[in-house]
């Protein structure tokens, strides 16, 4: 199967007053049609910027330089013309953003906000687009969609607004949906509803998904594969099963230990990873996680580890995995760093 989306060695940096910020540094991954990938990381790890660069949706005031390739259906999105990009945005790739409260235009009825996208991409007439918008709103679970589509966003709750956002993103039946922390701003119960809805719809419509999040729960619920990012770099890339059962990278392990679990420790304590992520304005030599890692080798401080292939569906950017990469032909067995 040829990949729907192939990101090759993507690097993004911003020119700011504080210096050049490397927001994404050497990111590669691919995504087949209908597949779903979770990108996990702390804030500032580059996950949102990676997703924005797919559609070149940087801020209008940002001074950005991007290198690498983002191949979507064989075309490099970093190099396609504005007109081409305009057809892809919202047409073939839909996007759901973090904050549903500010993501809708406050003075435009929600139905119109769905319909305008349909009209733009399909050339449907105003009434046709309106009908489809109402259908879409109904499908994402807006009660009484026929009437409520005339209302302005402020009369909808956060969860309902995020449903409207999902309707907008999926209105033109895209091939790929990018969801950038779609549930972070929502209450837990509402989070679950929105995630379920996203997952259901994308499976029904056969849409590939990139789910950006800092929440392993969200990843577990929606993704087939996971990419863990730290300090703008990919750390580990594996299937969802590998992630929870045999995470390889010390950073991933550290993150997983932070997920509170009832069954293990009722009175237990969380073990935060010591130290702080490095500033992205400074040049990082070696592994960015080395200063906080408990397994640091001399090599880690001098040389940046590449993503080693350590299993059929498992890559890890850790020098400790180098040896394992050589033994990759051996049968899989639980493997621990040290």
């Amino acid at each position: 199967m040829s990949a729907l989306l192939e990101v090759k060695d993507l690097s993004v940096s911003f020119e700011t007053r504080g210096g050049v910020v490397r927001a994404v540094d050497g990111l590669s991954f691919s995504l087949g049609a209908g597949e779903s990938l979770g990108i996990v990381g702390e804030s500032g790890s580059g996950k949102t910027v990676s997703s924005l660069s797919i559609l070149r949706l940087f801020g209008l005031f940002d001074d950005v330089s991007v290198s690498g390739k983002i191949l979507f259906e064989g075309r490099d999105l970093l190099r396609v013309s504005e007109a081409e990009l305009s057809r892809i945005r919202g047409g073939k790739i839909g996007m759901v953003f973090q904050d549903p409260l500010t993501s809708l235009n406050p003075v435009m009825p929600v139905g119109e906000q769905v319909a305008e996208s349909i009209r733009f991409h399909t050339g449907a007439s105003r009434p046709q687009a309106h009908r489809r918008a109402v259908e879409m709103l109904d499908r994402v679970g807006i009660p009484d969609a026929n009437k409520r589509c005339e209302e302005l966003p402020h009369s909808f709750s956060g969860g309902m607004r995020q449903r409207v956002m999902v309707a907008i993103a999926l209105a033109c039946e895209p091939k790929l949906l990018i969801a950038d922390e779609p549930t972070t701003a929502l209450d837990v119960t509402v989070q679950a509803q929105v995630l379920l809805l996203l997952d259901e719809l994308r499976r029904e419509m056969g849409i590939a998904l990139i789910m950006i999040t800092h929440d392993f729960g969200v990843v577990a619920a929606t993704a087939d594969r996971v990419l863990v990012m730290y300090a703008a770099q990919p750390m580990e890339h594996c299937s969802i099963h590998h992630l929870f059962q045999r995470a390889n990278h010390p950073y991933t392990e550290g993150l997983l230990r932070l997920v509170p679990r009832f069954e293990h420790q009722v009175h237990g304590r969380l073990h935060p990873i010591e130290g702080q992520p490095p500033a992205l304005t400074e040049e990082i030599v070696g592994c960015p996680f080395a200063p906080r890692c408990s397994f640091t080798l001399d090599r880690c401080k001098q040389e940046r580890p590449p993503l080693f292939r350590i299993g059929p569906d498992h890559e890890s950017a850790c020098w400790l995995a180098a040896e394992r990469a050589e033994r990759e032909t051996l049968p899989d067995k639980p493997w621990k760093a040290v």
Partner: protein
Amino acid sequence: MSSTDNKESVLPARRRARAGEGIGVLLLRRLRDGIITLLLVVAVIFVLAHVVGDPALVFSPVDASDEEVERIARAFGLDRPFWERFGSYFADIFTGDFGESWWQNRPALAAVAEALPNTIYLTLAGIAGAALTGIVGGVFAGSRPGSLFDRGSNFFSISALSVPNFWLGLLFIVIFSVQLGWFPTSGMFGVSSIVLPALTIAVVHGGRVFQLVRSATVEEMSKPYVRVARSKGFPHRMVLWRHVLRNTGLTTATIAGWEYVRLWGGAVFAIEWVFAWPGIGTLTINAAERQDFFVLQAAVIIAGVFVIVSNLVVDLLYRVIDNRIKSS
């Protein structure tokens, strides 16, 4: 349902309550405020003229003796107690009696009424030019901050609003009337006369409108919904027209309205004087030079009325546009 819901519903609920009161109630409330303001304006003018200054001295010749001044004060009833004078002053003004102009030998109000349409004509032409250049320029500059057009027009507008309006008017006269001979230097003869004074207003006030509209647009462009509109594939122009302008339209209309009020607040007077435009400003300055107390007083009060009325209209327009946006 959720905490965000509760936080969300508090503000709009209050806004809805106010929105529900209807345009009529708003009109009445603003009218009441306007009348109170007008009363205060009239009272302040009286205090300035009769308490801080002494009208009897103003009415007398420069070399008049003390007895003569006293005689004049008696003739005008200025020897009466303060409250009595205050009362008759109010009664006169609200029955439309603003006194007689000595200089023009006719009621002061008639002199003002003759100048008034000319000032309305000039301010409307000027504000139309200012709004057009300021809004169009501000939107384009603000939608692409840092672009060549943005930096160029920003520089131009800062220069325009930093220059005194009368000086700019004189500059235009030197360039376009004296050097090029395209327009008359002064007065009001046909359409060509209004070009230079209106242009002066358009440049100075357009500069300010530009600044405010630009910053409103820049702020709006960085809101998340703009990124969402871009994620739908809309080209820049469409994002601007369909989404951003719908949100800044209200602010923009208000900014233009305020500038119009500023004109009536005195900005147009200097321009009229420079171009010898026969409006209220020129009349006021002439009256002051000739010590024509009653014309001066009438002109200031009428200008005050226009400031109040313009404010009222801006307020009501804001509401009408707001309602139309909300219900469309």
